[in-house]
């Protein structure tokens, strides 16, 4: 064996393991409270009160919901493909969690005389990694729907899969325009560029809009929640699921919302940068650890704003019809994204030429 393979940096390994544990438990916690917030926001927008019985203001409601899901009987239909039936929700959960690996949650802490990066893996192809994992998210839906051996589930899964695949195209094209400006695929580099310059949402408003719409479609959120259209397909691809397997699917959706909010904030709204504050000067004045904590909080606020936006849209806009969805994806968003790409390319070239033709 090669000697370097035997030599493992155990300290780094433990540091990363702790970070992974923290990030995963935080995203699970946030997903839990997203279910609460979803119901509260829905209630507020419909002049209701929302869950208010479990604990003060109903804040223990997610725990009660989780308890209920755990207590429910686990049913695996006799005609289902058992292995895939169990694999489906696991895969949905796995792909939802994996995206969090490349998002920079803050700059770095200086603890115990160590320089601790708040990013699980700063890989130089961060965005490509996200795209790869997000495309794998289709499998959760598809496998679950197919293994149920139910026509409604299968139809819903096919609809969901074709929707996700179509909107991924527009999403990718919107990102290409952004990448022309950044010149880097690494998320931490993109955030650092935004700390110095403008937020990319101001530079790429159209690209951001397209990305936002596609993010809604990728998360299977209303107005694009065709794969679980209750009125036409009963419950969609998870109709045959019960107990915590259903819970996993619902949870995966909320984790997806959280992660895509984080990705949007990172790519277009400066990530962990504190708005209207010079981060470098703030760090010098108050120390690196305070700065990193404030930055993590700033990113958290941005993410919460996005999550609220997701919910706000959900309780406003009705679901698209399938042909409308495909029209929007293929005939409007993709041409727009290509136009945006060409326009951006033109300006990037001009800039490289020092504004001379």
């Amino acid at each position, binding site marked *: 064996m090669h000697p370097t393979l035997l030599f493992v940096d155990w300290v780094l390994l433990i540091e990363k393991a702790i970070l992974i544990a923290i990030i995963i438990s935080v995203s699970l916690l946030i997903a839990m409270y997203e279910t609460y917030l979803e119901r509260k926001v829905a209630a507020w927008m419909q*002049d209701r*009160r929302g869950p208010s019985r479990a604990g003060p203001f109903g804040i223990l409601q997610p725990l009660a919901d989780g308890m209920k899901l755990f207590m429910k009987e686990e049913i695996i239909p006799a005609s289902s493909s058992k292995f895939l039936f169990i694999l489906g929700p696991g895969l949905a959960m796995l792909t939802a969690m994996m995206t969090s690996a490349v998002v920079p949650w803050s700059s770095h802490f200086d603890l115990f005389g160590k320089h601790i990066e708040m990013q699980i893996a700063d890989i130089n192809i961060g965005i490509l990694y996200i795209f790869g994992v997000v495309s794998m998210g289709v499998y959760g839906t598809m496998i679950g729907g197919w293994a149920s051996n139910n026509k409604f589930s299968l139809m819903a899964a096919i609809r969901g899969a074709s929707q996700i695949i179509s909107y991924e195209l527009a999403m990718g094209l919107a990102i290409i325009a952004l990448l022309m400006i950044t010149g880097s695929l690494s998320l931490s580099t993109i955030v650092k560029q935004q700390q110095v310059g403008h937020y990319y949402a101001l530079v790429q408003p159209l690209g951001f809009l397209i990305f936002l719409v596609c993010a809604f479609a990728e998360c299977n959120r209303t107005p694009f929640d065709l794969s679980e259209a209750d009125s036409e397909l009963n419950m969609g691809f998870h109709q045959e699921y019960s107990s915590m397997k259903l819970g996993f699917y619902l949870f995966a959706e909320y984790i997806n919302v959280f992660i895509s909010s984080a990705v949007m904030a990172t790519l277009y709204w400066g990530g962990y940068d504190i708005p209207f504050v010079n981060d470098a000067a703030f760090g010098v004045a108050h120390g690196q650890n305070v700065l990193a904590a404030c930055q993590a909080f700033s990113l958290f606020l941005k993410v919460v704003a996005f999550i609220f936006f997701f919910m706000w849209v959900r309780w406003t*806009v009705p679901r698209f019809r399938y042909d409308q969805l495909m029209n929007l994806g293929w005939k409007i968003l993709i041409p727009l994204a290509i136009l945006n790409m060409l326009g951006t390319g033109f300006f990037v070239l001009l800039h490289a030429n020092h504004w001379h033709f």
Partner: protein
Amino acid sequence: MQALTNRVKQVERKPMSMWEKMYLPAIAKGMSITFGHMFKKRPTVNYPEKTRPFSPVFRGLHVLNRDEEGRERCTACGLCAVACPAEAITMEAAERLPGEEKLYREEKYAAKYEINMLRCIFCGLCEEACPKDAIYLSETFAPANYTRKGFIYGKDELLIPDPVTQPEEFAKAQGNRAK
């Protein structure tokens, strides 16, 4: 074609304009409406903590009344059962034995008195029929129950607490409709 009423409106089916086709302005408008609703007053009444006031003529669950000394007023004459249009009331009479004068006002009393709350239409005719003011309808309504049997209220549910031994409970159960 001649219109049947003067309220007919001709529907225009124009193709959507560019502004309408963009979706986004319409969505922004809708979202501003839903956002505005977040700050509106909510009409919900937080039920168990807060209740809506009943009207003074509200007729709810029945109460079997006692007199000031805590004796049951009912003599099991059966007029309420006869008056009841839904035939919800049944009773069995019994004779008062010596030594029970503190419990029952007259020589005859209702040993069993049952009202089926599922049959009852809360019309209040029993209250009007009673010559002894022994029954009246209060301001509460029958709570949910798991079985049909649970809706057949016996004397233990209907009888008002004794005003002599349990004055607080009596005052609470009496309500505004007591005579």
